[in-house]
C-alpha cells in the first residue's frame, strides 16, 4: 500500500537527482518487505494490512448499511407523497 499524499517533493527528489551519488534521502525498495507481510495466512486480503485496513473497512461498511437504510427510507417517502 502506497501513501496517498506522495507529494511533488518526493517526485522531484527522485526525478531530478542526476550526477551526485552522495548520501541523500532515497526511496528504498520496500516491495520485498510487503511481499513478506502479505503472505497467505488465512486473513483476507482486504484486512491483511492491519488496523488501518480494519478501520477503513468498518467505516465503509457502516456507510453502506446506513446508506441502504437511508435510501429505502427516501424511496418509501417518495412513493407516498403527502397531499
Amino acid at each position, binding site marked *: 500500500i502506497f501513501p496517498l499524499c506522495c507529494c511533488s517533493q518526493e*517526485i522531484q527528489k527522485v*526525478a531530478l537527482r542526476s550526477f551526485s551519488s552522495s548520501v541523500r534521502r532515497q526511496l528504498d525498495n520496500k*516491495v520485498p518487505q510487503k511481499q513478506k507481510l502479505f503472505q497467505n495466512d488465512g486473513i*483476507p486480503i482486504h484486512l491483511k494490512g492491519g488496523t488501518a485496513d480494519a478501520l*477503513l473497512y468498518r467505516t465503509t461498511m457502516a456507510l453502506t448499511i446506513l446508506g441502504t437504510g437511508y435510501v429505502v427510507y427516501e424511496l418509501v417517502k417518495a412513493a407516498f407523497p403527502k397531499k
Partner: protein
Amino acid sequence: MAHQAHAYHMVDPSPWPLTGAIAALLMTSGLAVWFHFHSTTLMILGTILLLLTMFQWWRDVVREGTFQGHHTPPVQKGLRYGMILFITSEVFFFLGFFWAFYHSSLAPTPELGGCWPPTGITTLDPFEVPLLNTAVLLASGVTVTWAHHSIMEGERKQAIQSLALTIALGFYFTFLQAMEYYEAPFTIADGVYGSTFFVATGFHGLHVIIGSMFLAVCLLRQIHFHFTSEHHFGFEAAAWYWHFVDVVWLFLYISIYWWGS
C-alpha cells in the same frame, strides 16, 4: 497450508462488490432525490462510498499482484482481455454521442436554419486552443510511450520523468479545456449544437481526468518499485486507456471542432 495446483487466481472473499453496488444505488437514487427534493445528501454519500470502494478494491488488486504474486501469465492474460473489453465498451459509449452529433448535423432541421453550424451559433476557431489541445494530447501519447520503453529497459529515473510529463500534459489539456468552456460563446442549452458539443466533449474531459488519475497511480507505483521490466501490466492498461482518450479527442476534433464549424 494448502497450495494450489494451478496457475489461476482464486480471489479471497471481498466486501467491495457489495459496497460498490450500494454506492451505485445511492448515487442514482440520490440523483433522483436531488432533482425532485433538492437534497444532495444521498448522492454525496453514494459518491463517498464509491471512492472508498475504488480505493480499497484497487489497493487489494495491487496487493494480490505485486505482493502476493497471484498475477501469473494466464491471470495477466485475463486482465488484458478485461481491459480490452472495457475499453471497447467505452468506444461504444462514445459512438452513441458521435451518432447523435452526425444525426443532427448531416441533416439540419429548418428550426436550426437548415444549416450547420445552426444560425446564431458562433463556433470556436478550430485552429486556436482546440489545435493546441490536439498537440498536447499527441505529445502525451509520445511521452507515455517513452515511459513504457523506459520501464522495459529498467531506466527508473527516465520512467518517472516521462510518466510525470505525461500527467502534466494531461492536466494542461484539462486546464485549457476548462478555460475554453468558460469562454465559449455558446452553452449546453443552445439547442442541439450546444447539447452535442458539451455532452461529447464533456464526457471526453471526464475520461481525460480519469486517465490522468490512473497514470498518477502508476507514477506512485513506479516510484515505489512495484513495476519490473518484465511485468508492469497496470502501467500498460493505463497507457492503453490514455491512447484511447487521445483517439477519441482526434475524432472529436475532426468531427465537431473542424468539420462542424
